[in-house]
Each structure stands twice: as C-alpha cells, then as structure tokens.
C-alpha cells in the first residue's frame, strides 16, 4: 500500500531499477518489476533504450496495455521484433546486452543468487529454477538485482549458485571463465546496494524512512557501507518522481506488481 509516503516499496524499487537503465542501453528484461521498470525508463530518461526478452521479443517503447508476463500480447504487438530465444540469447552471448535484471530467493556477500532450492530448517524447498537468470548472470555486461528485503534472503553463501555474481570475490569471474561484468546493484524494498572492487556487497543508500542501523542486522556478515568502500556517505534513495509514479501506475493500473 502506498501509505503516507505516497508510494509503495515496489514503486520505489521500480523507480530505482529504471534509473539503472541508461539511455542507449539494450536491457535484458525478465519477469515482474523489470517489466514495469523498462517501460518507465524508456518513457523518461532513456528514450533510446531497447528491451529484449528471452521469449524472443525486442521492444523500444512501452506496451499499450498491462504486462502480466513478457509474452502478453501487448508486449508483442508493434514490437521491434518477435523472434526466438536463441536470437535473443545470442545477443547476450556475444556481449551485446548492457544490463540484465535478476531476482532471487537468496543472495550472498558477493552477489551470487539462488532461485533453485533453499533450506528451511531440515526441509529443502524446491524453487522454480534458473530460467534465463543463469545466462544473464554469466553474460550481461552488468546486472541489477531486485529482491524483497527479508533477512532470510541474505546469506553468507548461497545454498545453490543458480546465477553467479562475483563468486568468492576478486578476480573470481575471470578465473572461472564467466564473461560478463556481474552485478553492479541490488535494490531491495528497504535499500540500494553496490558492489565494491572486490565484488562484495555494500550499502549505497537507504530508502526514505529507513536507517542504516535497521539494515545491518539483516545481514549475517559485517555489511560494508559506501563509507567503508570510500565513496562517501550512505545516502537516501531518491523518491520516485511524480512522473515516474504516474507512469508506473499507467503500466500497472491495478497495481498487480507494484501495490
């Protein structure tokens, strides 16, 4: 619910995610919030951005209608191209994707993601799996991760590394022949994070109304902050502008993804 702030956590996440798309980028867009974030970005600061979807869609503008999935007909109608998965994945593999979006049930200190299976006490819970996430994580020039902010999701080491981030840090990606650049940002429902030169997560900004001290205990390791990595203070994440909120609500009129 929007509440007194005038926007929801997810609307803020859409706004933050949209800002991660630069004008001229080709973005690899997946399920859920990124579906909205791309449409916001291309409608505001990134009019020359393009989106590709692993289903086989290339788009340069918002869909004329709500997108529940990337295959909803409004996403195909008047697309730049409707093609196949290997066409899209080949663009990724040859290094032509600037930014890819990922989610996860678990993330660890170096941005590795798990969407395959998690432990809950004695029980091992099966999740849907990779989809295209492993491919995006391996090969996009940079990735941006969106997750609900829940402490159980932040783990020292993912139980299953579905989508490699910076592995164990340092030059892990190069040493393991993982070609893309790896994660550059994590946006949760409470804060935004970056990755330092060693590939370790650090707190970049807290969302309005959230304090740094609220965030720290959610992590099972000593969380670094912007200050620790020498890029200044932890800031407050910018609120979504009226324009962004209005667009978000146009693209998600019933608030299915963002309320």
């Amino acid at each position, binding site marked *: 619910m929007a509440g007194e702030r005038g926007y929801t956590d997810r609307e803020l996440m859409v706004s933050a995610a949209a800002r991660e798309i630069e004008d001229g980028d080709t973005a690899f867009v997946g*399920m859920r919030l990124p579906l909205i974030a791309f449409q916001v970005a291309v409608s505001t600061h990134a009019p020359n951005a393009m989106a590709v*979807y*692993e*289903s*086989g*869609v290339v788009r340069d503008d918002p869909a004329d209608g709500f997108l*529940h*999935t*990337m*295959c*909803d*007909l409004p996403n*195909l*109608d*008047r697309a730049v191209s*409707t*093609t*196949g*998965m*290997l066409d899209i*994945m080949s663009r*990724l*593999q040859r290094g032509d994707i600037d930014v890819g979006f990922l989610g996860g049930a678990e993330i660890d200190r170096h941005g590795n993601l798990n969407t*395959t299976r998690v432990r809950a006490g004695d*029980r*091992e*819970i*099966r*999740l*849907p*799996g*990779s*989809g*295209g*996430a*492993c*491919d995006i*994580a*391996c*090969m996009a020039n940079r990735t941006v991760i969106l997750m609900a902010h829940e402490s159980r999701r932040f783990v020292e080491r993912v139980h*299953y*590394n*579905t*989508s*490699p981030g910076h*592995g164990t840090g340092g030059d*892990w*990606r190069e040493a*393991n*022949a*993982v*070609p893309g650049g790896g994660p550059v940002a994590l946006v949760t429902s409470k804060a935004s994070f970056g990755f330092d030169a060693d590939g370790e997560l650090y707190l970049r900004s807290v969302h309005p109304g959230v304090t740094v001290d609220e965030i720290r205990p959610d992590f099972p390791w000593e969380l670094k902050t912007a200050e620790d990595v020498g890029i200044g203070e932890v800031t407050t994440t910018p609120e979504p502008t009226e324009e962004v909120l209005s667009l978000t609500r146009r693209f998600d009129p019933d608030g299915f993804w963002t309320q």
Partner: protein
Amino acid sequence: MPREKRASMSEAIERIQPGDSVALGLALEHAIPFAAGHELIRQNTDELTLIGPISDILFDQLIGAGLVDRVRAAWVGNVSAGTGYRFREAVESGSLAVENHSNLSIALALQAGAMGVPYLPTRSLLGSDVFDESDLFVEAEDPFSGDRLALVPAIRPDWTVVHVQRANAYGDAHFWGNAGAMNPAVGAAENVIVVAEELVDPEVIKSDPSRVAITREQVAAVVECPYGAHPSPLTGRYNRDNEYYLRYHRSTDTRAAFDEWADKWVRGVDGRAGYLDVLGDPGNLDVSEPTVAAEVTYGR
C-alpha cells in the same frame, strides 16, 4: 498428393507412449499447448520425460497428474504466482527427477539436436551450480583461443508438441509472435504433433512460405483445436487469461485440491469442447484491436 495427417486430439495423443520424452511449452508463456497436455492427462500416459525451457503451469499439471518421471527444464512453476505446488511437492518427495538447465542450455541442447550435432558450446553456465552440480555438461577448452567453454549435449525428444495459429492437413504450419525454443525443438524431435487454432487450405500456407515454421516431413499428426492454448495467449487470436493462472495457484496447494481441479477442468470434461463449456465463453480474451501485418507479396 502429400499424405494428410489430420487427427482428433485423442488420436494424435494416443501415439505418445508411456516412457516417451515430450517437449512442450516451448514459446515460453506464449502458445502453450494446454489442450494437448490435458489429453495426456485424460489418457494417463505416464512415465514421461518433459522437456522445455520454462513451462508455466502445464508441466505442473502433468506432474500433478502423476505422469512425469523426469523433467529437463530451466524453470518450472507458475509465471503469475511463482511456485508450482505440484512440481515442488514431487521434487521434495523424491518422485520426480529434475535435470536443471538454464534457458540457453535447454535451447542449445535442442538446437544441437536440430542441427544434427552431438553438442553445442556456450559461454554461459561455467561458474554456476547449474553447471557444477550437473553430470550433463562438460567443460572444454576452445582449441582456437584456449577459452574455457561449457559443452551442452544434444537433446532429441521423442515428441515435440506445439500450438500454432494455422496449419494445413499435411503438417506445414504458419506461426508468428515470439517463438522461444520452438524451432529448435521441432528440428530436434523424432516426431511432431501440430495443434492448430485453425486448419486451412494448403494454398493459404503456400501464399507465405517465409512464415512457415514447421514443414510436413517431421509431422506425425495435425489437430485443429480452437482456443487450444488457453489460458496462455496466442498472437493475433486471444490474450492471456491471467486470472486462470492465479486461480490455479490458489486451487492446487495440496494433492487433493489438485485432483479436484483436474477433475473439474480435465478428467471430467469431454475434450477441449468440454473444457470450454466449463470455462464459459472465452471471447472476452479475443484480440479486439488487431494490428494487420503490412502486405507481403511473392510471385513471379
């Protein structure tokens, strides 16, 4: 005259035997052959291996019906709601073997099958547990550059089942909109079942040979089945029935609940016509603002 392969859905699906491997749901959330999958449930064709990138809820339904021994896929669940309860329970109870893929690795495995080569190389997978915990993939050095690559071995399904907009009785089919891994899966399959929204005169297909996604020589049967992809969308025909997916999610969190769902929607209905009777008029999903493709001509 070429051989006609028109069949009823039950005749076509009868050809799939227990123990066969079946690729379906290849265009991701688009054009999923739900009607064909439901006929598998009615015929109780079991011990299946299912193959596909993501399945949306069709795999969950076939698993819930107890027909599936093994899944080779990148993602199994419910795109609207996340979890597929029948899949989750089957894995956790140990009754279902899962070969974990990424979307690219399943597409490459099928493409290798389609190209008639034993494997294809990729720059994906290395560094992930999709690779490390699999005994399917192999790491190899590129002999040209020395780069490390993952090799994805071919998958050749016994059957690929697809839903298309229109086909002729020989099996040649037009398809448009996003195709996901459909083309590789058709090329890789031993046999193909084409479910068409509409069976058309051969001359309709021949009027646009670059629109042809499937040619007859691999096709075992052609079935006409309007709304056969519901609740998934079909380009130019009908929109996704989002509410149906959410209701499925709410209705299948226990085995008993799933059985009730399956009795209502699959086991207790007389084919796709019966399903549509239960559903009520799906016309509200129809494309109401069609975009007509710009004219294309061939000729001489």
